[in-house]
């Protein structure tokens, strides 16, 4: 159960709906698409601030979408950081 409200795509409107639609256009490799077909939970976790969401994930595209670190090296960085911070997600 989330501790704060999460507005998913079907419940979204206005600015948030526009941001979700725009983020859907991002090239997302198959490995990053959750089976529920919607935006990944970490994206939805930002739904209470539709201005923040593209700022945060624009930065992600910049860092995760290109080198010099290779895809496995980037995921090693991401997984190691998340493990140390004990983030289940």
């Amino acid at each position: 159960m989330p501790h704060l409200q999460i507005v998913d795509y079907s419940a979204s409107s206005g600015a948030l709906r526009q941001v979700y639609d725009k983020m859907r256009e991002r090239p997302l490799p198959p490995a990053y698409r959750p089976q529920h077909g919607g935006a990944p939970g970490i994206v939805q976790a930002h739904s209470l601030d539709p201005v923040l969401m593209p700022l945060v994930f624009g930065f992600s595209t910049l860092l995760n979408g290109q080198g010099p670190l290779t895809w496995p090296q980037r995921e090693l960085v991401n997984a190691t950081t998340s493990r140390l911070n004990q983030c289940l997600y």
Partner: protein
Amino acid sequence: MGAHAEFLRASLQDDQLARAVIADPRALADRATDPKNRALVRLVTRVTEMPWALGKRDHQLAKEAGLDDASVLHAVVLSSYFGHLNRIADAVGIDLDYEVAIPPVHAEPATPPYLVPERELWPDPDLPRTLELSLRPGASEALAAWRKHALEREAPLSVRQRSVIARAVAERLGDAAGVQKFSEATPKEELENALVELAHVVTLAPWRLGAETITALRKAGLDGDVAIFDAIAVATACTTFSRITVALAALARD
């Protein structure tokens, strides 16, 4: 960690390294077979746990393992960025929505907090640096836009409240420039004290974030989920901003 251990597994078509990350990343810093992987895990562990303790020696070790300056910068910024994502995920309380082959471990709230550096250990922000954020195209601009949104709006939180959070995070990460910039923003009333407490847990013990964090902010007078999310998102963002600043300054010192 669940999602990214899965992506790591998918990227290698092999689960050995991902399983080792979940089991014990500190052991991996010594035992990973690939020297670049060993160096990356060592560097990222330092960036995450105590960025203020980095030094030229860490940069040198990474270089000797075959990581060039652009790769070291990439790892520092990426790890600092994930510091924000990890904390937002836990504070909001999202469920893992990927099918994963390797089960993640649950947070252990009794884990001691990350260490706060004594003042004399804070890296000197004025020391000439070998690694600058500007070496990565677009990163400075993207970070500046995020920083402006986090720190320069008057609603839901006031600029003053944002500054209180930013200062508290900067102090806990040894970010001298951040503390200087927000020198006036020491807490003066109950809600500001609660924002400092939020910054404390967000920065030093992310494994304790959860329902209690939200309840404390509500009790202190933050009204509604949007304002509470704002407070949390300012704190998590500031850990990213201060961590990058501190790590890059620290990597330049003897």
